[in-house]
């Protein structure tokens, strides 16, 4: 290699080092180095190229230690290739690839990359739409008047009905909140009869009409009972139960009822004016039933 070119390379290789971040991997560096040999890539000396690359990596490492792994792997590979290229051909082991072939492949890869670079440059050097050549600035929209023919076959109709029908019979399982007659509702209802119930009347008589079926009546009894307790506590009604689990009667409160000694026959809860009374009410449900 003439001195002049060698110097060129020195200068180039300095800029290579500075430019390392601008290179996209070892192949990029190799291609640049190969270009520096100023020969057709097909005739490139892989041996020289390997030497130059190794020198480049050495120098780069001296400057910055964090040289990317790719560069080092390629360096190792090239060092190996170089040694293989230098060895006499007879020493070649059976299972190892031919060094010349490896070199040829590297040369091919560089050529190919170079070719793609040129192709990219040519491509982007073409007249580009919107940069060099222009389409109509105000395209006239072609209005499409669409006439749609909707079709549906009988089979589609039947199939979809069958699906809809079977889907609706198998809704996901939801545990619905049980319907309950609230004490508030019962209270409103009972307050309505206060004053109109002079005689002892069974509590069941005050249940709302639509709660008298088998499933819902327990809830209504519970709430009505609780409401009656509340009204008794407030002093509006009197309650009476003559035996355990016996029927409960209610009537309007009278003067007599207000006397403290007349607690006989009444549930203890009625006369106890205890603030926690209402909290205990839920426990009574079972008894009412």
């Amino acid at each position: 290699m003439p001195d002049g070119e060698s110097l060129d390379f020195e200068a180039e290789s300095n800029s290579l080092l500075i430019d390392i971040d601008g290179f996209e991997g070892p192949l990029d560096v190799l291609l640049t180095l190969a270009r520096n040999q100023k020969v057709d890539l097909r005739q490139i000396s892989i041996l020289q190229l390997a030497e130059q690359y190794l020198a480049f990596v050495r120098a780069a490492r001296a400057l910055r230690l964090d040289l990317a792994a790719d560069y080092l792997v390629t360096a190792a590979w090239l060092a190996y290739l170089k040694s293989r290229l230098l060895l006499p051909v007879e020493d070649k082991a059976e299972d190892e690839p031919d060094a010349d072939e490896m070199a040829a492949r590297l040369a091919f890869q560089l050529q190919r990359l170079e070719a793609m670079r040129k192709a990219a440059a040519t491509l982007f050097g073409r007249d580009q739409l919107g940069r060099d050549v222009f389409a109509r600035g105000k395209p006239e929209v072609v209005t499409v008047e669409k006439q749609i023919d909707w079709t549906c076959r009988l089979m589609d109709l039947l199939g979809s009905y069958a699906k809809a029908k079977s889907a609706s019979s198998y809704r996901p399982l939801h545990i619905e909140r049980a319907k309950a007659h609230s004490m508030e509702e019962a209270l409103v209802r009972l307050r309505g009869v206060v004053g109109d119930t002079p005689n002892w009347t069974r509590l069941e008589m005050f249940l709302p009409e639509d709660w008298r079926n088998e499933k819902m009546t327990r809830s209504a009894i519970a709430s009505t009972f609780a409401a009656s307790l509340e009204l008794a506590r407030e002093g509006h009604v009197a309650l009476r139960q003559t035996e355990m689990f016996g029927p409960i009667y209610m009537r309007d409160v009278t003067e007599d009822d207000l006397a403290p000694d007349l607690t006989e026959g009444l549930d203890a809860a009625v006369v106890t004016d205890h603030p926690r009374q209402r909290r205990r009410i839920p426990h009574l449900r079972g008894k009412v039933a």
Partner: protein
Amino acid sequence: MTEAETPPPFAVPDADRQDRMVEAILFASSDPLSTDEIEARMPRGSDAAEALRRVEAAYAERGVNVVRVAGKWALRTASDLSFLLRNEAQETRKLSRAATETLAIIAYHQPVTRTEIEEVRGVAVSKGTLDLLLELEWIKLGRRRETPGRPVTFVTTEAFLTHFGLESTKDLPGLDELKKSGLLDARTVAITPQKDDDPLEADDEDGPGEDANLFN
């Protein structure tokens, strides 16, 4: 691209070239341009007004004309050809699943209210779906239901029968027949509650495959 890459700074382009420039400028512009705006884009010494007159004349008989709009210039399709820019397309489209299902439910349950359709489908029925079916004249409004709110009901039409080749809606196969014909897929049939009640019967029918179906 090559011959004129660097036109001498003061050489005025010849008339022919000026015409080409006006054409290109008008073509590429999204808005009408005034004579001054056009001239401003042309090399110095060009006469846009002259060029525009020539270009206007050149295009007078063509499929695209140079027209003046609001004192500015633009290229427009010749008015006698505007019909070319309307396209009539006939398209055959399959009815959507929602529409098919809705139509089917109306056919089987008529007269049926929207709420009832939704109950069967388990999802809301969009107004668009009903509108489409009404527009196709496959369904029409029936009597109002004499319940609170007096909701409208939907029924199928003659056109519906004609389209589906039915004598009457009574000819529609029942759910059992649908099952037998395989329109209900095996999976859904396998988990019908009646069969659950009687495991022996289910066993007889489906054999050991039954369990597998449940989880498929």
